[in-house]
């Protein structure tokens, strides 16, 4: 058997130009991205607003094709979405006409898993993310944090190799966020040293979050979006114990140094 590739995702000279259909205006969202995502790593992606983080994720998810360069997943070019690449969106994107159980079951259902198996799997995941007792609720009956747990369970139901997460915790309050960070780490396998973990690409605006969760941090700059820096986070796991520690604070300060100027610029341009 072939040895599994060390790199799960490879981006080669990736550029993305959006062309507005209304006025034909061109927006260069990404340019010259050369990067590899390592199998099993927890990669966080940070950068000022509008630098192309969501664009990067949607190219890997297969929702759009890059206008230049290539995106490879497990050595093959990405051509469209695939259940091996699970996605979690900032705004939940739950199916509002399906219950929690119905949402979580959707992936296995779409892939033709039989009813009994997918029910059982959905129930396991619902219990795992702490939504037991809410199976029959509709998304609009849930709090923001519960919706995000549901979206997480929905993504996990397909057992994807890669978790693409676009600011999944941005819309929940701080306390919920801390709890969900810990649960996310637990589900990923933070405490299982040496285990084969899923690969995560996690976009966030929270620089402390980016440090706390990550094995590596991909720092993007803007105009057009390009790689500014890649930081290794050599902190021991499990990470929950390091919350508020001096090492995390030091790295967070360093990360802030890197992005402060462009973040300020982005705000200035947005408020013009």
């Amino acid at each position, binding site marked *: 058997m072939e040895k599994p590739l060390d790199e799960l995702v490879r981006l080669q000279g990736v550029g993305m130009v959006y062309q507005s259909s209304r006025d034909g205006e061109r927006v260069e969202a990404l340019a010259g991205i050369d990067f590899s995502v390592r199998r099993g790593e927890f990669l966080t992606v940070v950068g000022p607003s509008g630098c192309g983080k969501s664009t990067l994720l949607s190219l890997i998810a297969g929702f759009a094709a890059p206008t230049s360069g290539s995106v490879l997943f497990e050595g093959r070019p990405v051509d469209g979405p695939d259940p091996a690449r699970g996605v979690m969106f900032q705004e939940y*994107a*739950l199916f509002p006409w399906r219950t929690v159980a119905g949402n979580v079951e959707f992936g296995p259902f779409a892939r033709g898993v039989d009813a009994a198996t997918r029910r059982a799997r959905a129930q396991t995941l619902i219990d795992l993310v702490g939504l037991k007792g809410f199976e029959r609720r509709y998304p609009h009956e849930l709090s923001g944090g519960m919706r995000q747990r549901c979206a997480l369970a929905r993504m996990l139901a397909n057992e994807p190799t890669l978790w693409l997460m676009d600011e999944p915790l941005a819309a929940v309050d701080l306390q919920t966020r801390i709890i969900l960070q810990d649960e996310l780490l637990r589900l990923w396998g933070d405490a299982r040293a040496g285990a084969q973990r899923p690969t995560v690409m996690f976009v966030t605006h929270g620089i402390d979050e980016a440090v706390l969760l990550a094995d590596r941090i991909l720092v993007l700059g803007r105009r057009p979006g390009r790689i500014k820096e890649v930081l290794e986070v050599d902190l021991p796991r499990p990470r929950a114990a390091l919350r508020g520690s001096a090492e995390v604070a030091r790295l967070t300060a360093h990360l802030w140094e890197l992005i402060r100027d462009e973040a300020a610029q982005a705000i200035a341009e947005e408020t013009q």
Partner: protein
Amino acid sequence: MSRAGARFGAVALPLSGVAAVVVVWEVASRLAANATLVPPPLTVWRAFAAMQGSDLPADIGASLLHLAIGYGLGVGAGLALALVAASSRALEAIVDPFVEFLRPISPIAWIPLAILLFGVGRAVPVFLIFYASMFPIFVATLDGIRRVDARLIHAARSLGASRRLVVTRVVLPAALPSVIAGARLSLGVAWMSLVAGEIVGGDAGIGWRILWYQEFFQMDRVMAAILIVGVLGLGADLLLRALQHLARRWNPAAAESAA
């Protein structure tokens, strides 16, 4: 207002409106020189009661049959066309001009042609209803499909859904409230076309009966028949409204704004 108060108002306000209309009507018919031309409410009520034993059930049955066939075909065709137009920009570019051209033409304009083609009979009201009900549901469905949240489609695709599954399990449920709203609009114009079609080119039904009574100068029965048309139309709309409510149970905000 309290909940009970609101519910009381929901019933009492329309009822008091109806009562006011009945009073004005009564006064008007008394002031009018000719009580045969403007029959008072009580006379109309008696006419209605007398019609029970006559052809009224058969007339209503005939009209409902016209409606069921014409509306069923029209809504089906409108839905199918909307799905076709939504499936590709090219197909939309072909279908849309036809719809935009035909839509503003009143169904009544087609009556002479329909009579020539089908002869006086059931086919004329059925055709008119079919024609009229096709457009509102087409427009509403296409609009509903266009406004489906792209993220939901992305989510479904990345969860492994085929294109067919995306249509049946994401696009259609997401567009369902628009589809039902369109079906309600279609029903309204269908009901109007039914009466027009039956009067001008039909040989049965409650609309056709209005003309019949008029020829015998039974204005009380004409009025009674008109009221029956109104009540039946209202009943059909209430049915669709209940359906709309059901379809939006997962979204109470949308249900409220639709009520």
